């Protein structure tokens, strides 16, 4: 079974809850799909068993020995990535989308495409099973393809080791990497918080999840920060026929747990939040 934890809004506690799920489980493959801001390895310190290069697209480079400065490339570029600076055509690296068109139309073959090869995927073991995570090099395109690579690896490892459950910690938002995270999973858990922004982002996240034919399960984290907003979210969900997987209290010790490199369940399994997370996890596995 594959279970993805996502959130429209960042900072709702998604990764802390994923970490707690991972430690409530007995034997698991944990896939950190938040490749833009991978954090779970900080808590679990996985062993370094495998590493693979991820090519995050290409960037155009001009060979000025060949370039005749005709600027035909600039006319064709739709990403505003080629400009004339001090009478010289120049690639604006942050704008280049890597489409190859300039390199194809250059009459003197002065443009080559260089792969962005600084991003990595890692796989190893941690105290509750196996772990796979991606780290996107700063500034490189998060196309969701690295997420796919992480997920494929997680599936291979699960099969090789006879592990039934894969837990995916997804990125925030609703774009391409989120879609790559939830495509084909068995359950999508959306973590929200009782704030105005939380509710509006929850609606967007649900839209994406249902667009892909999945059932959304909602966790309201820090529910007691605004009780009436929590109730409003529950009421809205019931009107839309969306299941609430559970509500969790605001627990300042989650931060202490993080600093001690532990999930909240490992930190103190007798806290009410720890018990609730375990209960939600067991329901996810058994229903």
């Amino acid at each position, binding site marked *: 079974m594959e279970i993805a934890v996502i*959130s*429209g*809004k*960042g*900072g*709702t506690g998604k*990764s802390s809850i994923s970490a707690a799920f991972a430690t409530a489980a007995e034997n698991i493959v944990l896939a950190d799909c938040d490749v*833009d*801001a991978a*954090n779970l390895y*900080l*808590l679990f310190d996985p062993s370094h068993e495998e590493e693979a290069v991820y090519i995050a697209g*290409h960037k155009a480079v001009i060979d000025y020995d060949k370039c005749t400065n005709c600027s035909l490339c600039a006319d*064709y570029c*739709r*990403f505003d990535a080629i400009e004339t600076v001090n009478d010289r055509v120049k690639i604006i690296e*942050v*704008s280049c*989308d*890597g*489409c*190859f*068109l300039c390199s*194809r*139309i250059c009459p003197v073959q002065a443009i080559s495409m260089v792969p962005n090869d600084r991003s990595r995927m890692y796989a190893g073991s941690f105290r509750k099973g196996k772990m796979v995570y991606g780290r*996107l090099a*700063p*500034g*490189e*395109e*998060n196309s*969701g393809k690295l997420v796919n690579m992480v997920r494929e690896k997680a599936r291979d490892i699960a099969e090789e080791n006879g592990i039934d459950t894969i837990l995916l910690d997804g*990125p*925030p*938002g*609703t*774009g*391409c990497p989120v*879609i790559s995270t939830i495509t084909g999973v068995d359950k999508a858990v959306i973590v929200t*918080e*009782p*704030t*105005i*922004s*939380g509710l*509006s*982002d929850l609606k*967007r996240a649900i*839209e*994406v999840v249902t*667009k892909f034919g999945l059932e959304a399960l909602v966790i309201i984290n*820090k529910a007691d*920060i*605004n009780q009436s*907003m929590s109730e409003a979210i529950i009421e809205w969900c019931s009107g839309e026929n969306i299941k609430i997987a559970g509500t969790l209290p605001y627990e*300042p010790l989650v*931060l202490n747990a*993080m*600093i001690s*490199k532990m999930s909240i369940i490992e930190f103190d399994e007798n806290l009410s939040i720890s018990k609730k997370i375990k209960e939600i996890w067991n329901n996810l596995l058994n229903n």
Partner: protein
Amino acid sequence: MISIAVASGKGGTGKTFVATNMFNALLQKGEKCHLVDCDAEAPNSVAFFKATELRRNRVTQPVPVIDTSKCTYCGLCHDYCNYNAIFILPHISFIQVITDLCHSCGACTVACKYNAISETDVTLGEVISYTFRGEPRITEASMNTGVMSPVSVIKKAIRETDDMSGTVIFDAPPGTSCPFIQTVARADYTILVTEPSPFGLSDLKQSAETLLSMGKPFGVIINRSGTGNRDVYKYLEDAKIPLLLEIPFRKETAELYSEGKLLSDSDNVFSEQLSETAKTIAASYGNSGNKR
């Protein structure tokens, strides 16, 4: 004018909290200020203001349409497409555009020797303008769900503010990939909002590295100070990154925010700190001629 992007590697550190309150604080001072919500995948800055919708501009991108009566199934368009957005089976004369994968680079139209490819527009999202206190002061980038990348919508929203005077604040998208880059690339200065936690520090490092590699000036606001540990402070000191402001953690702040209220409306000291921070930045980095 000066444009300030308020960003954070990690989500939920209080980026929108800082952006909306800074905007509000400058208005309280009678300063000219405009807010652009660039978090097109999860826009919600507007919810904090009693703003009235002024207009909506659709953001579209051109995608190829293939005229099968002219197509020879030579496959050159497929070879030119670097995004696998053209699916072709020449032996059974089948060709299809996969719109979701198309980046609108135009390579296929250049490739086609038979004039079989034209383009049509698909909608990616909207740029919505709002009036607040009688003047157009807020712009929101909003991407449709199911769309792959918010970049075009963000660029269009920012472009609408190009000729403005005063202070323009961008509420940037989280992360450090394309949407973040395209926002901070167009700002004169970037404020990174972080929190003193291990996750916060790890994401701050990633954002700081990105801005350093781009050569963009930036400083840091630590939100929820008094919680967590001192590792973020040590990192800022070692890396010589300016600490602009600390916002202490108070449960009441979180409660106010959850109700959609602005702390700067009730806390004069906080309001003063934010407007001073913005003014100090404007004095050093305003009118820098940053190409936007």
